[in-house]
């Protein structure tokens, strides 16, 4: 069901989807920025995972923070937000596999989720069960935002409204 941007009675599911969009997008936006600010720290964290070959680790240390930042921005602004939500859910799945692999091998490392911010704001940054649950919750929120077709508080909705006004 496509919800018109002008509809007054927005279902609770769609309101939740908007809330989830801002929460998940905001988290990815900020954590992406924190990693962009300190890529060396993120590279060292990736190396501690002992999951990928060295060249791929270096590439991901440069690429992944920008991908997180871009996806977070898309979700918050509401530009290709459904696709971005799906991609964030995929990234969360990738993080869950990585953390699960580290836990299975008995390696104690930082998950590197919040990069520089973990030290500044004393955020939980250990790759453990809590990190997996956190990622699962974020994944659920993303999938809910993906399923919802509400255009409330989105740039796409704003453009649709403008076009509608021009036609009428």
């Amino acid at each position, binding site marked *: 069901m496509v919800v018109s941007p002008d509809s007054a009675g927005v279902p609770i599911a769609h309101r939740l989807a908007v809330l989830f969009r801002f929460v998940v997008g905001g988290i990815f936006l900020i954590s992406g920025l924190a990693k962009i600010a300190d890529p060396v720290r993120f590279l060292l964290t990736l190396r501690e995972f002992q999951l990928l070959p060295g060249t791929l680790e270096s590439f991901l240390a440069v690429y992944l923070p920008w991908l997180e930042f871009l996806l977070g921005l898309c979700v918050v602004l509401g530009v290709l937000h459904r696709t971005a939500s*799906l991609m964030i859910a995929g990234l969360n799945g990738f993080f869950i596999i990585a953390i699960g692999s580290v836990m299975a091998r008995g390696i104690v490392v930082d998950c590197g989720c919040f990069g520089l911010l973990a030290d500044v704001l004393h955020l939980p940054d250990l790759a453990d069960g809590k990190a997996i649950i956190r990622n699962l919750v974020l994944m659920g929120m993303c999938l809910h935002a993906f399923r919802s077709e509400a255009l409330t508080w989105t740039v796409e909705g704003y453009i649709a409204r403008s076009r509608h006004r021009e036609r009428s």
Partner: protein
Amino acid sequence: MIRKTILEMISLLLLAFCIAMLHHSLSSSGITIFKKRPAAQPSTTFMNGGAAHGG
């Protein structure tokens, strides 16, 4: 619908790749977006000057 989603995914991945490579090449050239605060270190100029004058 699926085709549109896949195309949007590829676009976002490529855009992120371009921005990351641009940022990386700018950083390699010495142009930084986020300037790091230099760590507090004793002034070597002062130390050298002190040694020169004191000796």
